């Protein structure tokens, strides 16, 4: 955390826009992200667990996406656009 600590110390305490949003987005928001991350990960990190969770989430997302695509791509009796002269249907 030493390099991070340095970044925290370097943040101007008053006007965060002192250096423009180039610094706000690239520096101050960096600080915001960093502090948010530190708050969320105060407990000791478990990289293997993180990978497993990410793989599980990815598998669920990919599974649902596949079903959604198959549902849409499978032959349907209705054409994708019904010929209407209306602006649309609610």
């Amino acid at each position, binding site marked *: 955390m030493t390099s991070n600590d340095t970044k925290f110390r370097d943040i101007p305490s008053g006007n965060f826009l002192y250096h423009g949003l180039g610094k706000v987005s690239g520096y101050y928001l960096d600080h915001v*992200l960093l502090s*948010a991350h530190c708050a969320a990960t105060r407990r000791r990190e478990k990289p293997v667990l993180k990978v497993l969770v990410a793989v599980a989430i990815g598998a669920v997302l990919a599974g649902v996406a596949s079903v959604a695509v198959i549902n849409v791509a499978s032959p349907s009796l209705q054409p994708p656009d019904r010929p209407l002269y209306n602006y649309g*249907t*609610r």
Partner: protein
Amino acid sequence: MSKRGGSETRSPESSVEKQRSLLVRLSPGLLGVLLGALALGPALGPGFALRYDMVFVPDPPIFRDLGGFPRAVPSDLVVAVLSYPIPAMVVQKLILVGIFLLAATGAAALMPADRTAARLVAAAFYAWNLYLAQRLLLGQWALLLGYAGLPWAVRAAAQGGVRRFAIALIPAAVGGFQAMLVTLLAVLPVTARRAERWRAIGVTGTVAAVLSLPWLIPALRSGAATDPAGVDAFAARADGPFGVVGSLLSLGGIWNAEAGVPGQGFWASATIRLLVSAVAVWGFVRLLRHGRRDPALFGLAVAALLGLAIACLGAFVPAVPKGLISWWPGFGPLRDGQVYLAPLALVLALGLASFARGRIGLAAVAVPVLVLPTLAIGAFGRLAAVDYPAEWRQVQRIVNADPAPGALVSLPWRAHRVFRWTGGRVILDPATKLFARRVIWNDTLVVESREHGPIRVTAEDPLTRRVGALLAGPGPAGARLAAAGIRYVLISDGNENEFLLKLQDATPIFRGEGLLLLRL
């Protein structure tokens, strides 16, 4: 890393590092183009992508007599000017891909430069979500220009500087009134949070007002009326299993069921989209808790809440927008409240991106595509490129070559058309954009409601209402139309018999397979 020397010699490691850094810098843009190509798919082929409000025509005239309410101002003019040196179909594709490019790079620019994963996740989410997809399928490319430029406008508003802000507002200025209003909703709370608040708001308001003049002046002079029934027609609706609020929080809820992404109502997809939104909101709240003083973050939070409230108005308390529109037609843009979810889309993009760190975070770039996979390949064929039959170009040449004054009336007396050559897709009458002279078309909008039957949103243009009354009156209408300043009548869709009885005195100038042009 090698040291920088005066001899400008660099080690191979330095060169590789430089190339890598360039690739990292360009990656949000490349991702945006990739997502654009994936979403647009067949629409990028030869021809024009036509759907609802997205009507591009070959050789659009630069100097058009628009008259009436300025609907596509100045977007159509910009397209016409660009189409002078470049074919219009290429201009359309550049604009559509440009929307994805601008959106992705803008969202990425709001994240720290050294957080590649976070930048890419923000870029992917902002360029691939339900809001963008539904508005694209409704053909509202001009609004999407404002949406794409919104992160840049927010960034410029937080940074300050008139020139920077004016440049960032150009996409919204080109897009027209809806794009500008959506951008201002996000930008004003950001400027209000800055240290020199009143000066910043003054500068923002002045720049926005100047850039809005092309549509503001004609709108104020048009004498256009806004029908409060538009609130019933265009209010947000539930387009998934979680009701109106659930749809809006998932960035959906557009009024038109035909503009939905195929398969978006599938319960599992809808659940995951809502969960992703919840996680993104949590991420943004976490950012906000640590960055309360950041004007961009705070302003965006306020704008997102305001946008959500406006979107809910039409759905839950329609009397409020109806009352406002009845009092002053200028409140008309409130009727389609879902449009104001754009700041929420940016909030969710930043919130989701805040979790992305390292290689695992980089994998999260795929999340937006996985939660809305059916936007790919032109939303599975909803978007595709078609070409105009030759007869449309022939009629365009005949009418535009005629120096005699007089307007053109487009029949049938409905705003939207379905042609075989559009692949059954509903489009706004192309005649509205083909000709240099004034085109009178019925801008009454008819929306089919499952609960209330057809909802008719009365025409806004006073001349349209007058011509409509002439056409609906008894007996031949040719002489009366000519007296009202009409020179041409264009009948499309082959149902000419319905109108020829009313236009017996008219001279046929061109007769094609699906078009009949009459001169009065």
